């Protein structure tokens, strides 16, 4: 029963067998929302999750990414053809670069490698207030620091008080509070805005 094959077997087979996964279609969707519903979570509340890693990319060799965790840990990440990759938007493995910040969820293999199920590069989720607005840019105050948020025409979406997302950011107000999902530009105080949620 292909649909009942769990992701651990799927990913382990793909990784250990050295073969790429020919896409998720044959085994059912691995789209994030479906994938996250597929397995119950068994980690104790409060505990570290061994199937999760974060850090900065120190090298990329073949399909293996090495991460230097912010806590000093080192992580070996195996990316497969079934890995869902986000970097400002859904993207492909070749867009990852050394220096990217990263969150990874996957399956820990016996040798300690994390077989990536989903990978988010440079993603940030910030609450801030708008200090000023320029052409395709928002100047944000976040924890007392200034961030430059770039609006990317055609990609940036705005959600005003829970209404459906639209591309028009002109309703954002100076002094207003916002939540921003975006992609950090490594080693700068700049981000590209994927979605901005505006408060009342």
């Amino acid at each position, binding site marked *: 029963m292909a649909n009942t094959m769990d992701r651990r077997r799927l990913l382990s087979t793909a990784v250990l067998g050295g073969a790429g996964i020919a896409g998720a279609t044959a085994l059912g969707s691995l789209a*994030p*929302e*479906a994938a*996250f*519903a597929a397995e*119950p*979570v068994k*980690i*104790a*509340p*409060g*505990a*570290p*999750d061994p199937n*999760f*890693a*974060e*850090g*900065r990319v120190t090298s990329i060799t073949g399909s293996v990414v090495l991460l230097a*965790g*912010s*806590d*000093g840990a080192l992580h070996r990440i195996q990316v497969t053809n079934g890995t*869902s990759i*986000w970097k400002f938007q859904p993207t492909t493995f070749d867009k990852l670069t050394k220096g990217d*910040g990263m*969150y990874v*969820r996957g399956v820990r293999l016996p040798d300690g490698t994390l077989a990536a199920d*989903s990978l*988010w590069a*440079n*993603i*940030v*989720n*910030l*609450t801030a207030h708008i200090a000023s607005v320029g052409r395709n840019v928002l100047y944000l105050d*976040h*924890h*007392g*620091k200034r*961030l430059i948020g770039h609006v990317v025409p055609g990609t940036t979406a705005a959600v005003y*008080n*829970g209404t459906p997302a639209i591309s028009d950011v002109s309703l954002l107000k100076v002094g207003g*509070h916002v*939540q921003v*999902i975006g992609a*950090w530009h*490594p080693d700068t*105080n700049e*981000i590209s805005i*994927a*979605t901005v*949620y505006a*408060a*009342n």
Partner: protein
Amino acid sequence: MAAVTGEVSWFCCGSAWGPCASTGRGACGTCTSGNFQHAWPNTSAACLAITRPDVCGTSLSRRTCGFTHYTTNLCNGARVGTAIADCGPQTDLFCGERACCGSACGTNRIIDLTPAAYSAIASLSTGLRPCSVDTV
């Protein structure tokens, strides 16, 4: 506590890269992005005075550091158990905000999960999801 319906988001804490590097270990001093933890708007009187879910018509019980809540993503039914590690979200800043997946909706921000916990029930890129929160 009966299950409370609202919105769930995520936040980073502890050792981190990028803009998250300045966030610290949270009000409980234990918060780490890679742990199954969360922020709750009523961890103390001082916390509640900041987050003010009551202003939005949402009453949340006082729960202190280490208390366990279970959050269910109403978009897919996925559920995760987490322990309190910080005060938040600031519910009153987004009063009346509503997130929906079809007919499953949640109004007002009631809980923020760490990246490890949120990514166990939803993609981090979604940012916000309707949820229910209970204690069992």
